[in-house]
């Protein structure tokens, strides 16, 4: 049951962060802020993979590196 509760907790956090991104975009916030919230979402997903799926941590680090590169790179390339 602990895993079930954790998965619902993570899902709630992700939905909340989606709302936060929507609010930030509506408030004409900078791309960096939206990307920062998206990065937090990825941290939550990474935590789910680590704690719930028990995947090897190296994969979570690799995924974080890829996603961080894409999000950070997008901010830099946009000139935000």
């Amino acid at each position, binding site marked *: 049951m602990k895993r079930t509760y954790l998965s619902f907790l993570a899902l709630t956090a992700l939905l909340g962060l*989606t709302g936060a*991104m929507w609010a930030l975009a509506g408030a004409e916030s900078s791309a960096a802020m939206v990307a920062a919230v*998206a990065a937090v979402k990825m941290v939550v997903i990474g935590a789910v993979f680590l704690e719930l*799926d028990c995947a090897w941590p190296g994969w979570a680090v690799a995924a974080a590196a890829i996603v961080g590169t*894409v999000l950070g*790179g997008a901010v830099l*390339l*946009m000139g*935000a």
Partner: protein
Amino acid sequence: MLDTVAPSPPVTREPAVPPPPSRWHPLTGGTAVWLFMCIEVITFGMFLLGHAWGWRGQAAVYREAQALLHVDSGVRGTVLLLVGSGLAYQAVLTNAAGRPRATAGWFAASAVAGLAFSVNKVLEYGSPELAGITLSTNDFWFSYIFITGLHLLHVLGGVGVLAYLSVQAARGVYGPDNALNVEAGAAYWHLVDVAWILVFPILYLMHP
């Protein structure tokens, strides 16, 4: 004269010592699906970085085009994919607990969420604001149609996978000792979710 062979002493074996428990279990779904996931995220990432680069020099065109996008549709899609991932994860848990009918039900529910995402996306494509827009309208719309279309193909493929897993689970094919396909299918659905979590902010929300 035959030599008598002395009987060899009995071989004494050390009792098998189980390996120490590892904190990290093998990759759920197998290594191949994780390699596939990494390659897919890199692919989406390259297209998205190309789109971000397009903002330079065409900021006015991109801003005008982005303003036409339905952010509420993107949020609905995000919610549907996140909920679908949660449902697929419940299927993995119930399969590990040896409850095939519950596994089938969770997978079917996850497939319905994916189908709802697809319907939502098709409605978005058909909205009056996007009427007449094609891949060649400008660079922004090329990125939007190509990337979201590629993602939609992944979603439709995932819906098929989830539906198949649901049917097979209902037949009792899977269980705690036969979980590889169940975990691989759920991992693929998580990939579709992760890719969308990159697509949504970069295409719909972020701008200089």
